């Protein structure tokens, strides 16, 4: 469902990863590994179409990608339900009835986004993924500031709802989600310092 061929992504005008190729079939997840600064966020943003790729191809069904990072765009002055309803309306999808339970937000439904703790906000940000109904998810550190229980909730939703219904997820994370998913180490794709490329190459 998701196929990446020979992708080169750039950060600040310099290539950081090159020759990245992988494929993820429907119903499967891929976990990106690699030390800090290797370019996981850059790769995910490129996959989601926020950044142009310098070379290579990214194929997934049009209008099926969604991106999520630790900045989840939760509005402090909207309630939990309003935050979710907004995204549901933008994507033209109904809010699933059980979504608040799935992310343990039912008790917080009427609370203002601004009064939530960091972990609660994060859960709300992840619940957004359940609302927008996109098949191909690009998740950048989805479990930041989540406790063990919440990580399990998220992994459960990912495995049993998203992937089970034929979705795909590419996840950058440092922790073990407790899922049976292949891992891709990005270290071999790292662009060496002396290697060419980059938007300012013409100046060298």
């Amino acid at each position, binding site marked *: 469902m998701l196929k990446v061929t020979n992708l080169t992504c750039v950060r600040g005008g310099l290539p950081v990863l090159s020759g990245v190729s992988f494929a993820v079939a429907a119903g499967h997840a891929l976990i990106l590994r690699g030390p800090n600064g290797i370019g996981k966020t850059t790769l995910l943003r490129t996959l989601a179409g926020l950044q142009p790729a310098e070379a290579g191809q990214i194929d997934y069904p049009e209008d099926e990608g969604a991106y999520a990072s630790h900045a989840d*765009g939760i509005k402090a002055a909207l309630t939990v339900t309003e935050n979710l309803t907004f995204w549901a309306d933008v994507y033209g999808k109904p809010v699933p009835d059980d979504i608040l339970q799935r992310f343990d937000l039912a008790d917080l439904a009427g609370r203002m986004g601004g009064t939530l703790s960091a972990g609660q906000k994060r859960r709300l940000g992840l619940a957004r993924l359940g609302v927008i109904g996109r098949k191909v998810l690009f998740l950048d550190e989805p479990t930041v500031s989540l406790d063990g229980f919440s990580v399990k909730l998220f992994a459960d939703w990912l495995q049993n709802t998203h992937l089970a219904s034929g979705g795909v997820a590419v996840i950058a994370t440092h922790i073990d989600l407790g899922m049976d998913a292949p891992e891709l180490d990005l270290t071999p794709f790292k662009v060496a310092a002396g290697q060419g490329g980059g938007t300012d190459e013409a100046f060298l």
Partner: protein
Amino acid sequence: MIALLLRDLRLAVRAGGGFGLGLAFFLIVVVLVPFGVGPETAVLSRIAPGILWVASLLAALLSLDRIFALDFEDGALALIATSPLPLEGAALVKALAHWITTGLPLTLVAPALGFLLSLAPEAYAYLLLSLLIGTPALSMIGTFGAALTVGLRRGGLLLSLLVLPLYVPTLIFGAEAVRRGADGLDPTGALMLMGGITAGCFAVLPFATAAVLRINLR
């Protein structure tokens, strides 16, 4: 798009300040003018169209940097950019929301403040009409400026420097329409030209704004 508009309006109302601050600023500028130029009614009446237009322009400027800054910081803008909502549409909606929260209230209170400056009675209709036609252009131009400076830490001042020259044509036609109305001349020419600018802004600037946002999100 309606969802985004409703969300922005709701946020403006709940966060407070959105409506009130611009209006209060408008009032204060207009009240300060007589202290500066003296209380003579004839003088005030002559400069009233210009003062009202300049003051509403500055009041509209005040809230521009918040159009995209908050959504940019908390990541909502990146999420909107990857959503099915076209970024051009989002830019248009943002401008519209800004107009509803600043331009429209300014237009509605302007006649009351015109009274304070003893604006000629014939000019009230044209004041209302010119602001109604002109302030949407101010919001759209301002949205473009806000998109240009969204990634910058101290973008506020730069934003004014970028946007104010772009406001010149709208200001000229707007104030001219009111002035002609006050002098008993026919202001339709100025109003039509201003309408043309507003229409042109809404036709072109959403695309420029979206392009600029994409560059800034990279």
